[in-house]
């Protein structure tokens, strides 16, 4: 299995949508073949269309707000005492997380196709919140599918969705989390694909959704590349990019523009959710060697039993609480371009405490997983190493969990 140079990774799949010949594809009911093919044709044309790119960039700049900040975490660097620690503050983006890029692009596509309704899944509630914002902006009706357990634990984002006029549809099947929300959303699309557009909230699902999402979040690394050159005059000789990985959209977007660099120069570290340290359950299929299986239309490493039933996951972070992982990351793992590891619930909480103690930055529980590993590794790295963590979400949505686990003082200033 080989990663090609100078070809965007999203375009390295084969005719049937498989990366490396085995990850991804289109394991979908016959009914969805046509809408998926239509979306493929539309996207393949528009992604090279100057006017469409101009339109995208206009909304990215004026509405989402680009570029998001790239800042040095001086106090944290001093405290850790190793590599220089920096952060790309993607939570600056309108709505507070990277999910806005994919949501905006899907709404632009839906609008052009003349669709009136757009549906989407959400776990942490960010994908749903952003889709509801973009739908409102572009005059589309919006339905969001969300596990009943996640509705309970991510109330601030649920409120935001409703305020934007979206229908939030609770999903009670299975584990009542993201995996069930995506299933229910796909089922709704099967029954309504003639009138309704679907947005998948991460780089997962049938191949076209993986590609559209990866294309959209790549805005993050496009900005970062410019910011690095402005700051250092070049791409640093020792650069390490840490990102949490749920479905894999923020991490893929954070890395994409650096894909062709030697990994000795630009290393990618993906941090999955290890779950509670006392539990066997986790949401880290790459770290813990899960087998390849089919989930939500794509072949990927996925937590499952020997029969092929998808296993329940457990994580304090609703956004990472997913048994599968993007085919893009399976591909990056097997080609050894990226390295994957996990942080437990407790480690993420601890990292959140450290970051908020030393910096004026409040990463949500998802990026706190990445901070945990970055802090640990930075300690052992030389001063000329540049460590960057994608702070891809704001902790406001987690206030309930943080208060319960850490006490009131950690949420007051939010």
């Amino acid at each position: 299995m080989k990663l090609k140079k100078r070809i965007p990774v999203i375009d390295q799949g084969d005719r049937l949508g498989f990366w490396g010949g085995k990850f991804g594809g289109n394991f979908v009911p016959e009914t969805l073949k046509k809408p998926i093919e239509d979306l493929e044709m539309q996207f393949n044309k528009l992604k090279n269309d100057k006017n469409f790119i101009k339109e995208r960039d206009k909304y990215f700049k004026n509405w989402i707000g680009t570029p998001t900040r790239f800042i040095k975490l001086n106090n944290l660097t001093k405290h850790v005492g190793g590599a220089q620690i920096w952060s790309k503050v993607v939570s600056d983006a309108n709505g507070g997380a990277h999910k806005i890029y994919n949501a905006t692009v899907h709404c632009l596509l839906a609008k052009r196709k003349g669709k009136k309704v757009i549906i989407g899944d959400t776990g942490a509630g960010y994908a749903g919140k952003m889709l509801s914002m973009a739908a409102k902006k572009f005059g589309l009706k919006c339905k969001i599918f969300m596990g009943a357990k996640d509705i309970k634990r991510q109330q601030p984002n649920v409120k935001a969705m409703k305020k934007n006029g979206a229908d939030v549809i609770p999903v009670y099947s299975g584990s009542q989390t993201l995996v069930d929300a995506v299933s229910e959303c796909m089922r709704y699309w099967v029954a309504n694909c003639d009138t309704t557009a679907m947005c998948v909230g991460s780089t997962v699902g049938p191949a076209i959704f993986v590609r559209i999402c990866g294309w959209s979040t790549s805005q993050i690394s496009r900005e970062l590349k410019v910011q690095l050159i402005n700051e250092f005059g070049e791409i640093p000789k020792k650069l390490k990019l840490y990102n949490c990985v749920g479905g894999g959209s923020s991490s893929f977007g954070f890395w994409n523009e650096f894909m062709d660099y030697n990994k000795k120069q630009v290393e990618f570290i993906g941090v999955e959710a290890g779950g509670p340290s006392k539990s066997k359950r986790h949401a880290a299929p790459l770290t813990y060697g899960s087998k390849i299986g089919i989930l939500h239309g794509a072949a990927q490493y996925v937590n499952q039993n020997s029969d092929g039933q998808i296993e329940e996951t457990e994580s304090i972070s609703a956004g990472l609480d997913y048994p599968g992982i993007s085919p893009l990351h399976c591909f990056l793992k097997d080609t050894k371009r990226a390295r994957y590891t996990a942080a437990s619930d407790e480690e993420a909480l601890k990292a959140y405490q450290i970051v908020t103690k030393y910096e004026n930055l409040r990463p949500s529980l998802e990026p706190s997983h990445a901070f945990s590993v970055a802090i640990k590794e930075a300690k052992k790295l030389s001063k000329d190493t540049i460590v960057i963590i994608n702070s891809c979400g704001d902790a406001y949505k987690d206030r309930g969990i943080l208060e319960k686990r850490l006490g009131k003082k950690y949420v007051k200033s939010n």
Partner: protein
Amino acid sequence: MLNPISLAFKKAKNESRPALLTYTVAGDSSKKQSLEILKAISNHADILEVGVPHNTPVADGGQIQTSSYRAIKNGIKMNDIFKIVSDFKKSKNSKPVIFMGYYNMIYQYGENNFLKKCKQSGVNGLIVVDLPWPENKNFSKKCKKNLINFIQLLSPTTSNKRLKSITKDSHDMIYYISMLSTTGGKLKVSPKRILANYNKIKKISPKKNCVIGFGITEKTISNFKNTDGLVVGSQICKEITRSLSNRQNPVINVSKMVSKLKKKIS
């Protein structure tokens, strides 16, 4: 010699009626009971679809999900499902069996192993909901080699060009999904339009047995008497759920329902 599925269609045709296909989930509500249900409805139905329960079903509505979760919760495993089929096949009034499920279950078992077990236990056909054409080309060839009918699905969104290619690659039986819906949806398209699409398929592929499924219930079934076959699934699963919550015997109730369905198309 005709395979058992084609024979079942032929028999129904000789009686001037569509074949009746039922769908029940293996292991719903227990291994034993699902076997009893198969044996009981086998007296009325022509072909039995046996659902292989999966916990992330992207095309099933509420009723079949409920049945599937019930079966999984009761611990049903792939090997139990094969056992149910082979026990059923030993009963005196057994009928052809078609598995309906999702590809991951086959993938984890290993395609070749899976087909070997199908042959051993007496499974005659396979419907794999999330393995569409052309992705299913290799696997369907393997099925054919093993004398197992791989049943291609067609839907209202299938283009004419696709329709031609898919029917060309299909075996003796094809399945037309009546409308844009998961299983268990209300029939939201007029029977006339469904039959027009059905006739289009029959024109392209007159020799293949084409069944219609999704939205077929006691209420709607008599609209489709002039077809090769009809599938009833969700209504049966719902009847099992209803029987259980009323503390009645699902075997008797489901058997009654299937007998009624048969009368409506005879």
